[in-house]
């Protein structure tokens, strides 16, 4: 059920992120979502793309350190308080969220949230039971 996130180790140097997105664009890979976590030394770039296998291959060949990570994607209605509700239910069930980032759908009135947790299956079960819609690879392709 989980969706694939590409994680790229990037230097804190001007132009690194641009050069990555540029490489992906040149190879017809569409970005669905992107987030960067930065420290003083390095950045961790997290990407959701339409073809993660191709993206992984291209970026590895270019010399980047890549890791494929399973993350949980959840559809959140475009209304105040929806995200809080999702996080609350996870918290109540002792699921710790390491990081998250959100992105908007182009057409539908929906936001999507990507969550990084220790136990994907457990988190997915809890969210579904609470009435949230999870996103799948197919959903990503349609976005």
């Amino acid at each position, binding site marked *: 059920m989980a969706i694939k*996130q590409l*994680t790229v*180790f*990037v*230097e804190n140097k001007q132009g690194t992120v641009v050069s990555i997105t540029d490489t992906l664009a040149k190879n017809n890979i569409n970005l669905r979502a992107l987030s960067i*976590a930065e*420290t003083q*030394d*390095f950045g*961790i770039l*997290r990407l959701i793309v339409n073809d993660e296998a191709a993206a992984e291959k291209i970026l590895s060949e270019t*010399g*980047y*350190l890549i*890791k494929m*990570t399973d993350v949980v994607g959840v559809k959140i209605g475009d209304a105040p308080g929806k995200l809080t509700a999702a996080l609350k239910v996870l918290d109540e069930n002792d699921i710790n969220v*390491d*990081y998250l980032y959100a992105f908007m759908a182009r057409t539908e009135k929906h936001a999507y949230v990507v969550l*990084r947790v220790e136990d994907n299956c457990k988190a997915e079960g809890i969210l579904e039971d609470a009435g949230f819609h999870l996103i799948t690879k197919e959903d990503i392709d349609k976005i």
Partner: protein
Amino acid sequence: MAQNYYQKEIETMPIEEMKKLQSEKLVKQVKHVYENVPYYKSLMDEKGVTPDDIKSIDDLHKLPFLTKADLRDAYPYGLLAKPLEDCVRLHSTSGTTGRRVVAFYTQHDVDLWDDCCARAIVAVGGSKKDVCQVAYGYGLFTGGFGLNGGAHKVGCLTLPMSSGNTERQIQFMTDLQATILCCTPSYAAYIGEALKEQGYKPEDIPLKAGIFGAEPWTEEMRQSIQDTLGIKAYDIYGLTESTGPGVAFECSEQTGMHVNEDHFFAEIIDPDTGEVLPEGSKGELVFTSLDKEAFPLLRYRTRDICVLSREKCSCGRTLIKMAKPMGRTDDMLIIRGVNVFPSQIETVLLKEGYEPNYQIVVDRVNNNDTFEVNVEMTADKFTDKVSDILAMEKSLAGAMKIMLGINPTVHLVAPKSIARSEGKAVRVIDKRKLV
């Protein structure tokens, strides 16, 4: 291993007796050098020391040092102490910078050198029943001829392979059942990989021991060579200026090298002040040749940083032991008053599972030294969580603090991001020198 000695009386000599022997030899040697080497005589005169001031080994510290620069100045004959017609051999350092250093040997000098190498071979369990494959280069370099001479003295069947042509090395090793391999540790590792690729398992390889030297190597490398070749790997130390390999050699204990101190007296000095340091201190290794005739260097500064110790060794030898050199005085950095060697950083990285791709950056901010170590991230350590990577940096810094005594700031950086010049990574950037 049952202990055998090549020259038992010397190798197990009580310390007091050894001191007497060293004293007798030194008194004679200083006279010989003073009378025959004008270059060194003038150094002694400058210092106001005469041969009469040297009555025992305890007076050694009164003598002036010789450095690599002296050897270059005196090239080629300036430190020769015997007429050329008495010399039978010459060896030379590879001389990557400046002028070459040439060293001369009389037959007596070659004999004592061969004895030193024979002691090394017997100490690793060698005897006349062994087949000794010498894969050090033969020529101006001392490695090949040194171990070759030692193997002859022991009575081994000696295979004078020289270095290179790995196919032929493997053919001779397996066809003639070589039991002892002598070469550089990197070449031993290379031969090991080649054997592995050809499908040899450690137990199929006839070798039982290896004597590897002439370049620095780590304990990790020793372990990996031992595993691949199915042997015990022993270190050997030497330098052309003293004689060549065999100045010190490792015994079955594999915890440092016994110095052949009846021929080469070792001191540890403070590289800055030249002061002799007590046993167990870390400092620059200095050798005095006690009985070589043609090229007898007194108090030669090796620039190797190491520690001497006279703890009782399980092999029964009483010869003082030197630790594996930790680095060169040339590479040594003094950060916040502490001596730091790049090789120590490398050891920590290998131990912690990183590639030895790193760069040390030292600077001075508000009169305080800053000490940063950049380390390239590896594929199997990379995670998507910032907190994990920060924890890795912290734990690496902690491991370095244990090794060095001071705390660096560690930065994990992208692979291949550390500047390389002509293929070699720049290991140290000391910005303090620029101001």
